[in-house]
């Protein structure tokens, strides 16, 4: 399930892209999930753990992936217990955050209202303790905090 805290919270990694550079594992990069996320968000193909084919930049390493994809990979694979700032992700990452949260309890912070415009929807808002079940309910709750 996805748990969101709007605003800063203790233990938050505000800048997940920098954390990723220092903590990512080669195995995360070659996973099927990472390949799909990189293909969808960055429009790039993972060739191996250290080579990615970008249509704009040419051959790149995981260090040059977008900040959004780096954060998604951390949400999926980092098991340090850190809480990542999901505002490092654009709205085009929203469906992947929900996908990751299908397989684990995922807690993130948000400093803006990410566009989780999907149905059905189930998100636990840590600020209120309530679980929202629609985009409308989610927006109406979030608006008091960001």
């Amino acid at each position, binding site marked *: 399930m996805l748990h969101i805290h709007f605003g800063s919270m203790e233990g938050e990694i505000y800048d997940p892209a920098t954390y990723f550079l220092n903590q990512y594992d080669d195995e995360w990069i070659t996973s099927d999930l990472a390949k799909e996320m990189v293909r969808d968000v960055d429009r790039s193909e993972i060739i191996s753990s250290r080579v990615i084919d970008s249509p*704009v930049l040419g051959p790149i390493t995981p260090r040059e992936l977008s900040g959004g994809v780096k954060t998604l990979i951390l949400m999926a694979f980092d098991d340090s217990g850190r809480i990542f700032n999901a505002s490092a992700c654009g709205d085009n990452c929203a469906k992947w955050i929900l996908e990751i949260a299908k397989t684990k309890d995922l807690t993130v912070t948000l400093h803006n209202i990410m*566009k989780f415009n999907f149905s059905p929807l189930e998100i636990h808002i840590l600020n209120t303790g309530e679980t929202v079940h629609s985009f409308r309910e989610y927006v109406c709750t979030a608006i008091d905090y960001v």
Partner: protein
Amino acid sequence: MKGKYHITIENRRIRYEFTIRRNITVIRGDSASGKTQLLEMIRAFNRQNGDSGVTLQCGVPCIVLDSVRWEYTLASLSQSIVFIDEGNPFVSSDEFARTVRSSDNYFVIITRDSLPNLPYSVDEIYGIRTSSKYAGLKKTYNELYRLYGNVSSGQLPLVKMAVIEDSNAGFEFFDAVLQNRLPCVSAGGKSAIPALLRKEAPDRMILMIADGAAFGAEMENIERLMEAGYKIALYLPESFEWTILSSGLVDDTETAEILAHPEDFIESTKYTSWEQFFTALLIQKTDKTYLRYSKRKLNRVYLQEKERNAILDTMSALGPLLE
């Protein structure tokens, strides 16, 4: 600092081209649109100029500001365009907002945080996209595009109530001209608007009138309410004072010239937002005349037929409501 600055940045693979018009510009949008790449290229140019392989053309220096000792770095900069990448939490701090307010630099901030401490314009919030003008070429051409438009006139006949950001002269004017058509409510400030719309807009179309020059921080939340089905029509002129100046009531060459290209007259160290500048200009231009303007209380002269109609003529987007 004042003026507008056209910037081109390119290497062998990517070219960015855009114009910065005000002291605060915000870039946000989808992941992987090229925001960080833009900053990386400026950073490379900062380190090694042309030897970096990056070409950067702009009338003033473009500098990337990182979080380490940002206060000291910023204190050493003047008449520059300062770019700040996402991942820098200091951009939301009161201290940074204070620094920006008195700075003679322009700021381009990449962030999805709303930055409620900074009065930035809805017109200066951009995304980055690949330009269709150069589609098919080997090099990728990126440009900035405005994320937010203005009122959709098709919604206006459905409007049942107006929410006005202002609580003083601006509210008094709209309340008077709309009184026979719509109930008007003052939000008493921009930060109260999203919660007020949540309360008022679920079942009836609400027209929201706010000063676009300083409404940037609230825009994403309003957009989200609209996406969630709330019925909201937006009218976001620069400011009420800009509307009066645009009406021709203050008829002099200098005002016309300022309105044609405000960026060449608005000094960022004195005016954090264009709204403040246009208020000061209107007060100065109408002093000791029958149009004497006060933000606190509307001079009733502006509700006389000739003056009122001159102001309403500038609000063509609201046409169906004003007929």
